[in-house]
Protein backbone atom coordinates (compact mmCIF):
# COMPACT_ATOMS: atom_id res chain seq x y z
CA UNK A 1 0.00 0.00 0.00
CA UNK A 2 1.61 3.28 -0.99
CA UNK A 3 0.89 6.12 1.31
CA UNK A 4 3.30 8.50 -0.41
CA UNK A 5 1.03 9.13 -3.37
CA UNK A 6 -2.06 10.04 -1.37
CA UNK A 7 -2.53 13.65 -0.31
CA UNK A 8 -1.42 13.94 3.31
CA UNK A 9 -4.40 15.39 5.15
CA UNK A 10 -3.87 18.01 7.82
CA UNK A 11 -0.13 18.14 7.30
CA UNK A 12 1.87 21.27 7.98
CA UNK A 13 1.37 23.80 10.74
CA UNK A 14 -1.42 21.91 12.55
CA UNK A 15 0.85 18.92 13.37
CA UNK A 16 0.67 18.60 17.14
CA UNK A 17 3.86 19.22 19.05
CA UNK A 18 4.52 16.25 21.40
CA UNK A 19 6.53 18.32 23.87
CA UNK A 20 3.73 20.83 24.23
CA UNK A 21 1.22 18.06 24.92
CA UNK A 22 3.41 16.34 27.50
CA UNK A 23 4.07 19.69 29.21
CA UNK A 24 0.33 20.34 29.21
CA UNK A 25 -0.33 16.97 30.85
CA UNK A 26 2.30 17.67 33.54
CA UNK A 27 0.81 21.11 34.29
CA UNK A 28 -2.63 19.55 34.54
CA UNK A 29 -1.40 17.03 37.13
CA UNK A 30 0.38 19.72 39.17
CA UNK A 31 -2.67 22.00 39.20
CA UNK A 32 -4.74 18.99 40.16
CA UNK A 33 -2.62 18.28 43.26
CA UNK A 34 -2.60 21.97 44.26
CA UNK A 35 -6.40 22.12 44.08
CA UNK A 36 -6.83 18.79 45.81
CA UNK A 37 -4.83 20.00 48.80
CA UNK A 38 -7.29 22.86 49.24
CA UNK A 39 -10.41 20.71 49.46
CA UNK A 40 -10.65 20.45 53.27
CA UNK A 41 -10.36 24.21 53.94
CA UNK A 42 -12.70 24.83 51.02
CA UNK A 43 -15.44 22.52 52.30
CA UNK A 44 -15.09 23.81 55.88
CA UNK A 45 -15.48 27.35 54.60
CA UNK A 46 -18.55 26.51 52.52
CA UNK A 47 -20.21 24.71 55.42
CA UNK A 48 -19.41 27.54 57.87
CA UNK A 49 -21.12 30.00 55.52
CA UNK A 50 -24.38 28.06 55.66
CA UNK A 51 -26.90 28.79 58.41
CA UNK A 52 -26.63 25.39 60.07
CA UNK A 53 -26.67 24.29 63.66
CA UNK A 54 -23.22 23.02 64.77
CA UNK A 55 -23.07 19.27 65.13
CA UNK A 56 -26.59 18.69 63.80
CA UNK A 57 -27.46 15.75 61.54
CA UNK A 58 -28.04 18.13 58.68
CA UNK A 59 -24.66 19.79 59.09
CA UNK A 60 -22.90 16.41 59.12
CA UNK A 61 -24.73 15.31 55.98
CA UNK A 62 -24.02 18.54 54.13
CA UNK A 63 -20.37 18.53 55.17
CA UNK A 64 -19.99 15.01 53.73
CA UNK A 65 -21.64 16.09 50.48
CA UNK A 66 -19.71 19.35 50.05
CA UNK A 67 -16.37 17.65 50.73
CA UNK A 68 -16.95 14.40 48.86
CA UNK A 69 -18.44 15.72 45.63
CA UNK A 70 -15.40 17.70 44.40
CA UNK A 71 -13.06 15.12 45.91
CA UNK A 72 -14.61 12.15 44.12
CA UNK A 73 -15.00 14.02 40.84
CA UNK A 74 -11.37 15.16 40.91
CA UNK A 75 -10.05 11.72 41.79
CA UNK A 76 -12.17 10.13 39.12
CA UNK A 77 -10.88 12.58 36.51
CA UNK A 78 -7.25 11.84 37.36
CA UNK A 79 -7.68 8.06 37.54
CA UNK A 80 -9.71 7.86 34.34
CA UNK A 81 -7.19 10.02 32.51
CA UNK A 82 -4.31 7.82 33.65
CA UNK A 83 -6.16 4.66 32.77
CA UNK A 84 -7.15 6.07 29.37
CA UNK A 85 -3.44 6.51 28.62
CA UNK A 86 -2.59 3.00 29.86
CA UNK A 87 -5.41 1.47 27.83
CA UNK A 88 -4.15 3.03 24.62
CA UNK A 89 -1.48 0.30 24.79
CA UNK A 90 -4.10 -2.47 24.68
CA UNK A 91 -6.98 -3.48 22.42
CA UNK A 92 -9.53 -6.31 22.55
CA UNK A 93 -8.03 -7.72 19.34
CA UNK A 94 -4.54 -7.85 20.82
CA UNK A 95 -5.85 -9.34 24.06
CA UNK A 96 -7.68 -11.97 22.09
CA UNK A 97 -4.50 -12.88 20.24
CA UNK A 98 -2.75 -13.26 23.60
CA UNK A 99 -5.51 -15.50 24.97
CA UNK A 100 -6.36 -17.66 21.96
CA UNK A 101 -5.28 -21.25 22.43
CA UNK A 102 -4.17 -20.71 26.01
CA UNK A 103 -4.54 -23.57 28.38
CA UNK A 104 -7.19 -23.07 31.00
CA UNK A 105 -5.60 -22.29 34.38
CA UNK A 106 -2.90 -19.93 33.10
CA UNK A 107 -5.37 -18.56 30.58
CA UNK A 108 -7.85 -17.65 33.34
CA UNK A 109 -5.18 -15.72 35.21
CA UNK A 110 -4.05 -13.88 32.07
CA UNK A 111 -7.65 -13.14 31.05
CA UNK A 112 -8.54 -11.63 34.43
CA UNK A 113 -5.43 -9.46 34.39
CA UNK A 114 -6.02 -8.32 30.83
CA UNK A 115 -9.66 -7.64 31.70
CA UNK A 116 -8.49 -4.82 33.95
CA UNK A 117 -6.45 -2.97 31.31
CA UNK A 118 -8.20 -3.72 28.02
CA UNK A 119 -10.51 -0.93 26.84
CA UNK A 120 -13.99 -2.33 26.60
CA UNK A 121 -17.39 -0.70 26.49
CA UNK A 122 -20.53 -2.56 27.47
CA UNK A 123 -22.09 -2.11 24.02
CA UNK A 124 -19.17 -4.20 22.75
CA UNK A 125 -19.85 -7.07 25.16
CA UNK A 126 -21.54 -9.30 22.60
CA UNK A 127 -19.10 -8.75 19.70
CA UNK A 128 -16.29 -9.29 22.19
CA UNK A 129 -17.78 -12.48 23.53
CA UNK A 130 -18.32 -13.93 20.04
CA UNK A 131 -15.00 -12.61 18.84
CA UNK A 132 -13.19 -14.37 21.68
CA UNK A 133 -15.06 -17.67 21.57
CA UNK A 134 -15.00 -17.98 17.78
CA UNK A 135 -11.26 -17.34 17.68
CA UNK A 136 -10.58 -20.26 19.99
CA UNK A 137 -10.40 -18.58 23.39
CA UNK A 138 -11.83 -21.20 25.81
CA UNK A 139 -15.26 -20.38 27.24
CA UNK A 140 -14.04 -20.27 30.85
CA UNK A 141 -11.16 -17.97 29.93
CA UNK A 142 -13.59 -15.66 28.12
CA UNK A 143 -15.70 -15.55 31.28
CA UNK A 144 -12.69 -14.68 33.42
CA UNK A 145 -12.21 -11.68 31.15
CA UNK A 146 -15.90 -10.71 31.19
CA UNK A 147 -16.08 -10.89 35.01
CA UNK A 148 -12.86 -9.00 35.69
CA UNK A 149 -13.48 -6.23 33.17
CA UNK A 150 -16.39 -4.53 34.93
CA UNK A 151 -15.61 -5.59 38.49
CA UNK A 152 -11.95 -4.67 38.81
CA UNK A 153 -12.05 -1.46 36.84
CA UNK A 154 -10.01 1.68 37.19
CA UNK A 155 -12.90 3.63 38.66
CA UNK A 156 -13.45 1.13 41.46
CA UNK A 157 -9.77 0.79 42.29
CA UNK A 158 -8.97 4.50 42.12
CA UNK A 159 -11.87 5.51 44.32
CA UNK A 160 -11.29 2.76 46.87
CA UNK A 161 -7.64 3.74 47.08
CA UNK A 162 -8.54 7.38 47.61
CA UNK A 163 -11.44 7.02 50.01
CA UNK A 164 -10.58 3.91 52.00
CA UNK A 165 -6.82 3.53 51.66
CA UNK A 166 -4.44 1.29 49.78
CA UNK A 167 -5.09 -1.78 51.91
CA UNK A 168 -8.75 -1.97 50.96
CA UNK A 169 -7.95 -1.16 47.32
CA UNK A 170 -5.26 -3.84 47.11
CA UNK A 171 -7.48 -6.42 48.80
CA UNK A 172 -10.29 -5.56 46.41
CA UNK A 173 -7.93 -6.00 43.46
CA UNK A 174 -6.65 -9.36 44.70
CA UNK A 175 -10.05 -10.76 45.60
CA UNK A 176 -11.76 -9.31 42.52
CA UNK A 177 -9.18 -10.99 40.28
CA UNK A 178 -9.53 -14.11 42.42
CA UNK A 179 -13.27 -14.32 41.86
CA UNK A 180 -12.82 -13.75 38.10
CA UNK A 181 -10.12 -16.43 37.85
CA UNK A 182 -11.88 -19.06 39.97
CA UNK A 183 -15.37 -18.44 38.55
CA UNK A 184 -14.06 -18.55 34.96
CA UNK A 185 -12.09 -21.68 35.72
CA UNK A 186 -15.13 -23.35 37.30
CA UNK A 187 -17.32 -22.48 34.30
CA UNK A 188 -14.63 -23.93 32.03
CA UNK A 189 -14.54 -27.16 34.09
CA UNK A 190 -18.29 -27.57 33.69
CA UNK A 191 -17.90 -27.77 29.86
CA UNK A 192 -20.95 -25.73 29.04
CA UNK A 193 -20.10 -24.90 25.42
CA UNK A 194 -23.35 -26.66 24.45
CA UNK A 195 -25.29 -24.05 26.41
CA UNK A 196 -24.31 -21.23 24.12
CA UNK A 197 -26.94 -20.05 21.67
CA UNK A 198 -26.92 -22.25 18.58
CA UNK A 199 -25.74 -19.59 16.12
CA UNK A 200 -22.80 -18.64 18.33
CA UNK A 201 -21.53 -22.22 18.41
CA UNK A 202 -21.44 -22.48 14.65
CA UNK A 203 -19.51 -19.29 13.97
CA UNK A 204 -15.89 -19.94 13.18
CA UNK A 205 -14.48 -16.69 11.97
CA UNK A 206 -11.11 -15.82 10.63
CA UNK A 207 -9.24 -13.40 12.85
CA UNK A 208 -9.05 -10.05 11.12
CA UNK A 209 -5.58 -8.78 10.24
CA UNK A 210 -5.69 -5.17 11.29
CA UNK A 211 -3.17 -2.76 9.85
CA UNK A 212 -0.80 -1.51 12.54
CA UNK A 213 -1.85 1.93 13.63
CA UNK A 214 0.78 4.49 14.34
CA UNK A 215 0.09 5.69 17.90
CA UNK A 216 2.05 8.70 19.13
CA UNK A 217 2.45 10.17 22.62
CA UNK A 218 -0.03 12.86 21.62
CA UNK A 219 -2.55 10.19 20.65
CA UNK A 220 -2.16 8.55 24.06
CA UNK A 221 -2.73 11.84 25.90
CA UNK A 222 -5.73 12.45 23.66
CA UNK A 223 -7.00 8.97 24.53
CA UNK A 224 -6.81 9.96 28.21
CA UNK A 225 -8.79 13.14 27.56
CA UNK A 226 -11.38 11.23 25.53
CA UNK A 227 -11.76 8.72 28.36
CA UNK A 228 -12.39 11.55 30.83
CA UNK A 229 -14.98 13.17 28.56
CA UNK A 230 -16.69 9.86 27.97
CA UNK A 231 -16.62 8.26 31.43
CA UNK A 232 -16.87 11.31 33.70
CA UNK A 233 -19.49 12.75 31.35
CA UNK A 234 -21.51 9.58 31.71
CA UNK A 235 -21.16 8.75 35.42
CA UNK A 236 -21.26 12.12 37.18
CA UNK A 237 -25.00 11.80 37.78
CA UNK A 238 -24.43 8.43 39.45
CA UNK A 239 -21.70 9.92 41.57
CA UNK A 240 -23.82 12.80 42.82
CA UNK A 241 -26.64 10.36 43.61
CA UNK A 242 -24.20 8.04 45.36
CA UNK A 243 -22.72 10.84 47.43
CA UNK A 244 -26.17 12.11 48.37
CA UNK A 245 -27.06 8.60 49.60
CA UNK A 246 -23.73 8.42 51.40
CA UNK A 247 -24.33 11.82 52.98
CA UNK A 248 -27.72 10.71 54.23
CA UNK A 249 -26.22 7.56 55.79
CA UNK A 250 -23.37 9.57 57.25
CA UNK A 251 -25.62 12.17 58.84
CA UNK A 252 -28.75 10.29 59.83
CA UNK A 253 -28.34 6.52 60.08
CA UNK A 254 -27.39 5.59 63.64
CA UNK A 255 -24.13 3.67 63.90
CA UNK A 256 -25.41 0.89 66.15
CA UNK A 257 -28.24 0.09 63.73
CA UNK A 258 -25.80 -0.59 60.90
CA UNK A 259 -23.44 -2.47 63.16
CA UNK A 260 -26.35 -4.78 64.00
CA UNK A 261 -27.55 -5.33 60.44
CA UNK A 262 -24.27 -5.21 58.54
CA UNK A 263 -21.82 -5.92 61.33
CA UNK A 264 -19.52 -8.90 61.59
CA UNK A 265 -21.73 -10.88 63.94
CA UNK A 266 -24.68 -11.07 61.58
CA UNK A 267 -23.59 -14.00 59.35
CA UNK A 268 -26.67 -13.72 57.14
CA UNK A 269 -25.77 -10.18 56.17
CA UNK A 270 -23.24 -11.36 53.54
CA UNK A 271 -25.69 -13.43 51.45
CA UNK A 272 -28.29 -10.71 51.94
CA UNK A 273 -25.83 -8.12 50.62
CA UNK A 274 -25.08 -10.24 47.53
CA UNK A 275 -28.77 -10.83 46.76
CA UNK A 276 -29.60 -7.18 47.29
CA UNK A 277 -26.81 -6.20 44.91
CA UNK A 278 -28.07 -8.15 41.87
CA UNK A 279 -31.13 -6.08 40.94
CA UNK A 280 -29.35 -2.88 41.92
CA UNK A 281 -27.63 -1.36 38.98
CA UNK A 282 -25.03 1.26 39.54
CA UNK A 283 -21.47 1.56 38.53
CA UNK A 284 -18.44 1.71 40.74
CA UNK A 285 -18.47 5.49 40.82
CA UNK A 286 -21.95 5.66 42.32
CA UNK A 287 -21.59 2.84 44.81
CA UNK A 288 -18.27 3.76 46.40
CA UNK A 289 -19.40 6.89 48.30
CA UNK A 290 -22.14 4.69 49.78
CA UNK A 291 -19.53 2.08 50.69
CA UNK A 292 -17.39 4.74 52.34
CA UNK A 293 -20.30 5.93 54.49
CA UNK A 294 -21.36 2.38 55.42
CA UNK A 295 -17.88 1.42 56.59
CA UNK A 296 -17.62 4.68 58.53
CA UNK A 297 -20.78 3.68 60.38
CA UNK A 298 -19.44 0.33 61.55
CA UNK A 299 -20.62 -2.03 58.81
CA UNK A 300 -18.23 -4.97 58.34
CA UNK A 301 -15.80 -4.46 55.46
CA UNK A 302 -16.38 -7.95 53.98
CA UNK A 303 -20.13 -7.46 53.90
CA UNK A 304 -19.80 -4.06 52.25
CA UNK A 305 -17.29 -5.28 49.66
CA UNK A 306 -19.54 -8.24 48.82
CA UNK A 307 -22.38 -5.81 48.30
CA UNK A 308 -20.23 -3.63 46.06
CA UNK A 309 -18.93 -6.54 43.97
CA UNK A 310 -22.46 -7.85 43.54
CA UNK A 311 -23.81 -4.48 42.41
CA UNK A 312 -21.02 -4.03 39.87
CA UNK A 313 -20.37 -7.56 38.59
CA UNK A 314 -23.89 -8.99 38.59
CA UNK A 315 -26.05 -6.47 36.81
CA UNK A 316 -29.37 -7.17 35.15
CA UNK A 317 -28.75 -4.97 32.07
CA UNK A 318 -25.54 -6.86 31.31
CA UNK A 319 -27.34 -10.18 31.60
CA UNK A 320 -30.00 -8.96 29.20
CA UNK A 321 -27.29 -8.05 26.69
CA UNK A 322 -25.55 -11.40 27.15
CA UNK A 323 -28.87 -13.23 26.70
CA UNK A 324 -28.31 -12.76 22.95
CA UNK A 325 -25.43 -15.22 23.05
CA UNK A 326 -26.00 -17.29 26.20
CA UNK A 327 -28.90 -19.55 27.06
CA UNK A 328 -30.81 -18.79 30.25
CA UNK A 329 -29.25 -21.88 31.86
CA UNK A 330 -25.74 -20.60 31.18
CA UNK A 331 -26.61 -17.16 32.57
CA UNK A 332 -27.94 -18.87 35.70
CA UNK A 333 -24.66 -20.78 36.09
CA UNK A 334 -22.72 -17.55 35.55
CA UNK A 335 -24.71 -15.74 38.27
CA UNK A 336 -24.47 -18.72 40.61
CA UNK A 337 -20.72 -19.18 40.28
CA UNK A 338 -19.87 -15.49 40.53
CA UNK A 339 -22.34 -15.05 43.40
CA UNK A 340 -20.71 -17.91 45.33
CA UNK A 341 -17.28 -16.41 44.73
CA UNK A 342 -18.39 -13.03 46.06
CA UNK A 343 -20.00 -14.73 49.04
CA UNK A 344 -16.70 -16.43 49.80
CA UNK A 345 -14.86 -13.13 49.62
CA UNK A 346 -17.32 -11.52 52.03
CA UNK A 347 -17.05 -14.29 54.63
CA UNK A 348 -13.30 -14.59 54.31
CA UNK A 349 -12.82 -10.86 54.68
CA UNK A 350 -14.99 -10.65 57.77
CA UNK A 351 -13.16 -13.63 59.28
CA UNK A 352 -9.72 -12.22 58.49
CA UNK A 353 -10.46 -8.85 60.01
CA UNK A 354 -12.14 -10.25 63.12
Amino acid sequence: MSIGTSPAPQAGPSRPNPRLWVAGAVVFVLVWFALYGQLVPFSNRVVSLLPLERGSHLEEAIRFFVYDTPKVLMLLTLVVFGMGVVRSFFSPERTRALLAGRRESAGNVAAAGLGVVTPFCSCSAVPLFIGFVSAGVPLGVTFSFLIAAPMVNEVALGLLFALLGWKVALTYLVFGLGVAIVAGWAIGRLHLEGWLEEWVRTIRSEVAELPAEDVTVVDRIKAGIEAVKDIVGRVWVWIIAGIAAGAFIHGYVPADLLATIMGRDAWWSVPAAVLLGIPMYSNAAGIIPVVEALIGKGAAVGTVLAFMMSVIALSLPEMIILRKVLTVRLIAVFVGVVGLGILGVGFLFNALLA
Partner: protein
Amino acid sequence: MKDVKVLGPGCKRCQTTQDMVLAQAERLGVPVHVEKVTDYAAIAGYGIASTPGIVIDGKVVHAGGLPKEDDIARWLTA
Protein backbone atom coordinates in the same frame (compact mmCIF):
# COMPACT_ATOMS: atom_id res chain seq x y z
CA MET B 1 -16.65 3.76 -5.77
CA LYS B 2 -15.47 2.67 -2.33
CA ASP B 3 -17.60 0.13 -0.57
CA VAL B 4 -17.58 0.98 3.14
CA LYS B 5 -19.19 -1.07 5.88
CA VAL B 6 -19.54 0.24 9.43
CA LEU B 7 -19.80 -2.66 11.88
CA GLY B 8 -21.61 -2.12 15.16
CA PRO B 9 -24.79 -3.05 17.01
CA GLY B 10 -26.10 0.52 16.78
CA CYS B 11 -24.50 2.34 19.67
CA LYS B 12 -23.73 6.04 19.58
CA ARG B 13 -20.10 5.56 18.58
CA CYS B 14 -21.11 3.49 15.57
CA GLN B 15 -23.33 6.29 14.30
CA THR B 16 -20.56 8.84 14.90
CA THR B 17 -18.13 6.64 12.99
CA GLN B 18 -20.47 6.48 10.03
CA ASP B 19 -20.93 10.26 10.05
CA MET B 20 -17.16 10.73 10.17
CA VAL B 21 -16.65 8.47 7.15
CA LEU B 22 -19.31 10.32 5.16
CA ALA B 23 -17.85 13.70 6.09
CA GLN B 24 -14.33 12.70 5.07
CA ALA B 25 -15.55 11.17 1.81
CA GLU B 26 -17.36 14.37 0.94
CA ARG B 27 -14.36 16.52 1.86
CA LEU B 28 -12.03 14.44 -0.30
CA GLY B 29 -14.54 14.02 -3.12
CA VAL B 30 -14.32 10.23 -2.95
CA PRO B 31 -17.51 8.49 -4.05
CA VAL B 32 -18.58 6.00 -1.37
CA HIS B 33 -21.32 3.55 -0.65
CA VAL B 34 -21.71 3.29 3.13
CA GLU B 35 -23.61 0.44 4.69
CA LYS B 36 -24.27 -0.34 8.33
CA VAL B 37 -23.85 -3.89 9.60
CA THR B 38 -25.72 -4.40 12.87
CA ASP B 39 -26.24 -8.16 12.91
CA TYR B 40 -24.02 -9.76 15.55
CA ALA B 41 -23.32 -12.86 13.50
CA ALA B 42 -22.32 -10.76 10.50
CA ILE B 43 -20.08 -8.55 12.65
CA ALA B 44 -18.40 -11.60 14.14
CA GLY B 45 -17.85 -12.95 10.64
CA TYR B 46 -15.38 -10.14 9.99
CA GLY B 47 -13.19 -11.41 12.82
CA ILE B 48 -13.16 -8.33 15.04
CA ALA B 49 -13.72 -8.31 18.80
CA SER B 50 -14.66 -4.70 19.39
CA THR B 51 -16.94 -2.20 17.74
CA PRO B 52 -17.28 0.09 15.85
CA GLY B 53 -15.38 -1.58 13.05
CA ILE B 54 -14.74 -0.33 9.52
CA VAL B 55 -14.47 -2.49 6.42
CA ILE B 56 -13.38 -0.91 3.14
CA ASP B 57 -13.72 -2.91 -0.07
CA GLY B 58 -13.97 -6.11 1.93
CA LYS B 59 -10.91 -5.45 4.08
CA VAL B 60 -11.10 -4.71 7.84
CA VAL B 61 -9.16 -1.51 8.52
CA HIS B 62 -10.32 -0.57 12.02
CA ALA B 63 -11.86 -2.03 15.17
CA GLY B 64 -12.78 -0.53 18.52
CA GLY B 65 -13.33 3.10 19.38
CA LEU B 66 -13.67 6.11 17.12
CA PRO B 67 -11.22 6.20 14.22
CA LYS B 68 -8.94 9.16 13.62
CA GLU B 69 -9.92 11.59 10.85
CA ASP B 70 -6.47 11.30 9.28
CA ASP B 71 -6.77 7.54 9.14
CA ILE B 72 -10.19 7.65 7.49
CA ALA B 73 -8.81 9.96 4.84
CA ARG B 74 -5.88 7.61 4.30
CA TRP B 75 -8.13 4.56 3.96
CA LEU B 76 -10.46 6.30 1.54
CA THR B 77 -7.64 7.50 -0.70
CA ALA B 78 -5.51 4.36 -0.56
